[in-house]
């Protein structure tokens, strides 16, 4: 056991230089994250920070905790394994809208319903940054700047918070990289809330979606207390414009965690084979 004095946000930053473009929204998310970790006051070695592949998914390496930069789309599955194996760890997951909602959509669905205690942050820029600008599931159907879909996708975007609710997430929030203080607070609340917490963070990609700078004019804080029942949340989200920030839903399903007390030895088990 080491005695730890309270750590600052800076203590949670690593010395690896981000590969991000100057001005990318992800820098603010990183700051909000390290600030939140400092506020949560969990020892660095007790945190497991898991991600997939994408610009945003690079974030664990920029923090100073245990981390796993996995493959594209599978962060939530790795994270579930970590938490189920080691309930004592604080598990945080982050990544992009492509990573989490396109290739990783199935794990998102099942993470919401499985309700393992962890916090999942999607840094949503409505684009694939890392692969140089293709449409993601949150991209609007008429965005024509990808060479892959030069006429736009023609497909309705997914609304991540609505999907999370339908799939059974236990805590749902939305933040904006332009307001890192709020993002930081949402992360702290998400981590403290038992079960699966989902936080969508609007984080502009200034290289492939420079128009997202305008998000700062669209976001508005939710004036209401978080919905506490699924029905109430469904009703509220039915009319959500996608730019309301704050905690949108805080449910009370117990987190999933199989019991793990040994009641028998291997020798007891082997005895069954004696013929």
């Amino acid at each position, binding site marked *: 056991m080491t005695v730890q004095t309270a750590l600052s946000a800076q203590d949670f930053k690593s010395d690896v230089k981000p590969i991000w473009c100057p001005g990318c929204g992800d820098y603010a998310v990183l700051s909000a994250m390290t600030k939140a970790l400092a506020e949560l006051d969990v020892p660095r070695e007790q945190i497991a920070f898991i991600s997939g592949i994408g610009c945003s998914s690079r974030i664990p390496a920029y923090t100073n905790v245990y981390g796993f930069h996995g493959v594209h789309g599978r962060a939530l599955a*790795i994270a579930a*394994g970590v938490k189920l194996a080691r309930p004592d760890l604080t598990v945080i997951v982050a990544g992009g809208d492509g990573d989490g909602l396109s290739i990783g959509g199935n794990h998102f669905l099942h993470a919401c319903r499985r309700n393992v205690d962890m916090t999942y942050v999607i840094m949503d820029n409505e684009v694939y940054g890392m692969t140089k600008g293709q449409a993601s599931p949150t991209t609007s159907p008429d965005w024509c700047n990808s060479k892959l879909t030069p006429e736009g996708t023609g497909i309705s975007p997914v609304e991540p918070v609505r999907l999370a609710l339908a799939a059974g997430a236990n805590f749902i929030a939305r933040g904006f990289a332009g307001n890192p203080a709020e993002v930081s607070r949402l992360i702290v609340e998400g981590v403290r809330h038992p079960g699966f917490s989902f936080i969508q963070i609007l984080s502009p990609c200034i290289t492939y979606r420079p128009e997202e700078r305008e998000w700062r004019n669209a976001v508005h804080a939710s004036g209401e207390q978080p919905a506490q029942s699924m029905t109430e949340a469904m009703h509220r989200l039915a009319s959500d414009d996608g730019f309301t920030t704050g905690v949108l839903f805080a449910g009370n399903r117990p987190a999933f965690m199989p019991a793990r007390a040994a009641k028998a030895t291997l020798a007891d088990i082997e005895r069954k084979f004696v013929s």
Partner: protein
Amino acid sequence: MATYSVSVALTGSGGAGAMTAGQILLDSASKAGFFGLMTRSMGPQIRGGEAAALVRISSVPISSLDDHYDLLVAFDWGNITRFAAELPLSRDSLILADPEQGDIPEAVARHGARVAELPLKALAGTIPGARANMVGLGAVAALIGLPIDSLIAVLTVQLGRKGEEALAASTEAVRAGARAAATLPALPKLPEAAPHDGQRWNISGNEAAGLGALKGGIKFVAAYPITPATEILEWMAPALEKTGGTLVQAEDELASINMVIGGSFAGLPSLTATSGPGLSLMIESLGLAVASETPLVVIDVMRGGPSTGIPTKSEQSDLNIAAFGLHGDAPHLVVAPNSATDCLSATQWSVYLAEALQTPAIVLSDQAMGQSRVIIDKPADSPYVASRLVAPAGDGQYRRYALTDSGISPMAIPGTPGSNYVADGLEHNEKGTPSSQAGDHLAQLDKRSRKLDSFDYGDNWADIEGDGDIAVITWGSVTGPVREALARARARGQKVKLISLRLILPALPGKMEQALAGVGRVLVVEQTHSQQFAKFLRGHYTLPAEVSVFNRPGPLPIRPGEILTRLAAWE
């Protein structure tokens, strides 16, 4: 007329009770002091449908089917043509049929075996509550020389819960069958079983694999059901629960392999089990485990391929994907148990190796081993238990992928202060920071292959038996029939060596060279269509000039006699 083993096939439609009868036969053989082996052949139906219980009882330990069945008992003929090819008979074999069920189908009759009629159903009808399969069982016991008492003893335990009446009916039916058998043509009989002190076990290959995993130290399992691997998981779920581990059913194999990666990263020896289609889905993330040096074990219980293939039948055709399925240069372990019993020790060893070498180990079992049930002497304890080289608390300068001589770098487990790092599937430097530099890439590639190539695998890499100018090289469940064929070859004076490869990857050319010293001719035996194993051997080892290959895809098992024929040609 005595023999060291008899083989009995019990067949019938769903509901005829062939499986139950087979199970009781095997248990009774054990009770009587014999060894034994039972496999099953099932139709595609989920419930009902034709089925065969294939039982071999022996006075010595066995891990192979015989060339043919001495006795085939048909409770009815159902859709037997669907798998008649799996039921070889000789002219000396005896077909025991219920005349009520009609003529013997041509696919069965064509062998020219002897035929005896016994009105199984009618006889059962004379005993209230009795069933034809019990009558058949009694007849079988009498014909092969299995003490009826051992049958009754097993029935007494099994029907205990069902009450006196059920037991009495079954006992009576068994006795009636045995009596009726007196009038039937004789079969070679089992000798008296040798007395023994030690414990005998009744275990399936899949259960053995599960037990081996637990004994090796597995504490966390995430998996998705798939035939024929599900039974490993079904056995492990309650066993883990009782011993303080966790099994979680994942949404798919992509999730299960990544959960396993997470569990292992977090510090617990972790495992999943699947079959070909599931292994295919795990391929990308197995590469992640290689690159991030995360230990884990995947048991692949092989079935007929390609694609969905033949889910309920055996084949060795996942060798290629297991050995070469990963993209990039991705050295990892591939271990193959070579009998249902070895499923225990090989899996346990695999857990040990994966943990020691911080890399994924694929255990290649197959349906024939996994779903066969054997009576064996209690397996000896094995020393192999997971023991990972872990890093101590550090000062923030921890190098997760340090370039050590052995290639193995101490791994920090979350919770260890000052040694936090970020595991990465991107190429990286010693600290784990992504790097696309040629020097870092080469250093890490070297390290990851060095740790596998320079490890001491001892004698476990292969089972080597006998000596001679001829070697049979084989692997996996085909080892059973090869072993038996070689025993017969030796009995008739031929000098032959067995090399059954347990460690498929890494290849160990030095050890093979030693094993092949003095060998001039090699027969490779495998259950694939495209000679995957023979090509693998040619690619990785130096073989003698004369190499012959005996390969056949599933589902027909390879029989000792077929191998013997090939060896005889070299005599």
